């Protein structure tokens, strides 16, 4: 448990760094770092398969997507960038204080819930659950991927005028 709390603190620090860092590229790398730490947490919490998905998709695919988008865009001129960076800290310095004070306030809450939780234990494999009990979700995933494909075609493709 102590290990989990340590990992959680690392997670929080990484996400605050992601928000506060000046360069956009470092922000995207910070996001990949957050995903990686989340994967470690998932492994500790008895969810290895979801952890593998998280690592490969979020820390891999999504970060690559962000980094390629960032590099492809010449967003601002140099002067604007420098101006923006100077006053960035002025806007964002408040965040660590908010996070730490909120954390302290929330952890002082005393728990008064009488949760009578009937929790039947089960020893099932994820693959079994995903394939047999949640087929509708798998079907919907296929549909969403199809929607994503059409989205890319509609939003990105340059169409030649058909004569």
């Amino acid at each position, binding site marked *: *448990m102590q290990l*989990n*709390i340590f990992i*959680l603190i690392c997670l*929080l620090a990484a*996400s*605050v760094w*992601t*928000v506060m860092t000046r360069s*956009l590229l470092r*922000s*995207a790398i910070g*996001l990949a770092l957050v995903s990686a730490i*989340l994967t470690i947490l*998932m492994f500790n*919490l*008895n*969810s290895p*398969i*979801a952890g593998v*998905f*998280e690592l490969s998709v*979020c820390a891999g695919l*999504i970060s690559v*997507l*962000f980094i390629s*988008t*960032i590099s492809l*865009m010449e*967003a601002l001129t140099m002067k604007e960038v420098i101006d*923006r960076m100077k006053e960035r800290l002025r*806007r*964002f310095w408040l*965040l660590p204080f*908010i*996070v730490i004070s*909120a*954390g302290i306030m929330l*952890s002082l*809450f005393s*728990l008064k819930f009488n*949760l009578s*939780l009937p*929790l039947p*234990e*089960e020893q*099932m*494999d*994820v693959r079994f*659950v*995903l394939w047999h*009990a*949640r087929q509708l*979700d798998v079907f919907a*995933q296929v549909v969403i991927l199809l929607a*994503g494909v059409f*989205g*890319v075609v509609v*939003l*990105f493709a340059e169409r030649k005028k058909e004569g």
Partner: protein
Amino acid sequence: MDSASLYLFWTFGVFAVLIFIAGCYCILLSYNLIRVLIGVELLIKAVTLLLIVAGHLSGHPALAQALVITLIVIEAVFITVAVGVVQGIHRINGSLNTRLLKELKG
């Protein structure tokens, strides 16, 4: 659920809320559209954490993992489409300033 599990859930829950706060802060105060998307990603990470913890503590890790896998697929497609829209805005305007999105009035 005994108080030990409740304490565990509370700890994880507090951290999830803090990451949520960081994500919201990022969305509200960014000048760059891509940073807004990174903030949304942080929100989704916080929710993923909540789902996994709920699954672990309620004794249903398999169900929670199935839900998280579906959620990750949805998230990937969502970010793809959102990046597509942001690229479209960039192609038209040449800039990614969030203050550009003030044309349509309430």
